[in-house]
């Protein structure tokens, strides 16, 4: 049986991809950020997940304004890094797991989540930056990836409550997949940041850390944070953190925190990540 063995929440700031690709990860600016991920990279080397369900959002790369799926799951064989205006990142292609992805897609639809199915797309920094942060610079990514794209750009975006419930349904779907697979789920984006308007540059260390505390907690209070609170407290792009709740919902009621890190700033953004495992 396939099982979800761990969850990771992580920022996916594009500048981190630039730092990896240009070998700047040890300089004064990026050093403290990459040092915070060192524990996680070592842990991933030991865990060797077969598949990562990678929850992220597309930033007007694969999807333009013409079609806006709220929840979309990648069921393809392979995804190429997107050209985001500076040429595609020189990172390996991302290999999908169509058998597991289609199983999850079908299970979710039968479980009342009306998913959009994606067979072909390019994947942008939202998906490739977390892979670089967790796995470094391998010749090929060490696991297969099921991309799960969430609309967090055009309002209304899905509620935290709905994201959590989707995570629960993903866990049920994975558990009913007959093959023996070690599956992780990652929720990415955030933490506090605002990339637009006169209020751009807003960061909120206190709120972000309270959010991390709530993710570690044994109750589900975090799912009920309304959109307006993310927007007021963490900036207009801080709303990406609702995607972490899909990860958290998939881990069940109780979790054990294995690692946590927070750093300000990276470009316009607060960087955070947390590693959790389900606990009986």
């Amino acid at each position, binding site marked *: 049986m396939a099982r979800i063995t761990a969850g990771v929440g992580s920022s996916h700031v*594009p*500048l981190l991809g630039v730092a990896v690709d240009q070998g700047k990860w040890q300089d004064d600016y990026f050093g403290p950020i990459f040092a915070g991920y060192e524990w996680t990279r070592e842990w991933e080397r030991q865990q060797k997940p077969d598949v990562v369900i990678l929850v992220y959002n597309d*930033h*007007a*790369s694969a999807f*333009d*304004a*013409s079609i806006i799926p709220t929840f979309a799951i990648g069921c393809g064989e392979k995804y190429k890094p997107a*050209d*985001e*205006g*500076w040429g595609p990142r020189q990172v390996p292609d991302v290999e999908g797991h169509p058998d597991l992805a289609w199983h999850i897609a079908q299970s979710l639809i039968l479980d009342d989540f009306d998913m959009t199915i994606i067979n072909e797309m390019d994947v942008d920094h939202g998906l490739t930056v977390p892979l670089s942060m967790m796995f470094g610079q391998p010749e090929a990514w060490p696991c297969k990836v099921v991309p799960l794209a969430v609309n967090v*750009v*055009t*309002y*209304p975006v899905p*509620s935290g*409550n709905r994201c*959590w*419930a989707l995570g*629960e349904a993903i866990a049920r779907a994975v558990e009913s997949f007959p093959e023996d697979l070690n599956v992780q789920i990652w929720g990415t984006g955030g933490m*506090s940041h*605002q*990339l*637009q*308007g*006169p*209020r*751009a*540059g*807003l*960061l*909120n*260390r206190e*709120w972000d850390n309270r959010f991390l505390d709530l993710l570690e907690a044994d109750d589900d209070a975090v799912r*009920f944070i*309304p*959109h*307006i609170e993310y*927007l*007021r*407290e963490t900036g*207009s792009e801080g709303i990406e953190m609702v995607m972490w709740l899909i990860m958290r919902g998939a881990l069940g009621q109780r979790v054990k925190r294995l690692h946590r890190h927070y750093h*300000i*700033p990276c*470009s*316009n953004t*607060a960087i955070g990540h947390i590693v959790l495992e389900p606990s009986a």
Partner: protein
Amino acid sequence: MTNASPRQNIHEYLAELEDIPGTRVFTAARARKGYWINQFAMSLMKAENRERFKEDERAYMDEWAISEEAKAALLARDYNALLDLGGNVYFLAKLFSTDGLPFAEAVSTMTDMSWPEYRQMMLDGGRSPEGNRSIKGGY
């Protein structure tokens, strides 16, 4: 089954989104208004379109159903005006990269700070949420 949270009134929900200082939340209304601005910006993902745009910005924009006001804002790279007209930053970013402008530097042009001042603010911990959360509430 999960505990359903109380369903929010859509009018109250949308009104709250307008109560944040210095912020244009990308609501459906803005997405509709700015649809062609964003699709135009998206077209700059293709190298041949970037070439044609750079050669004659005005002529390239005339191929799109964009208002005169929006064309003027695009020519002036007035990103706050473009947000008001329904532009979204992830789409407008295609124009940042067409101009060869780093993302954070382009973002700083929407604030009342110069790029070096903005960069320093970020290094010092970013903009505080204090007083920046609510227009009506003033907190």
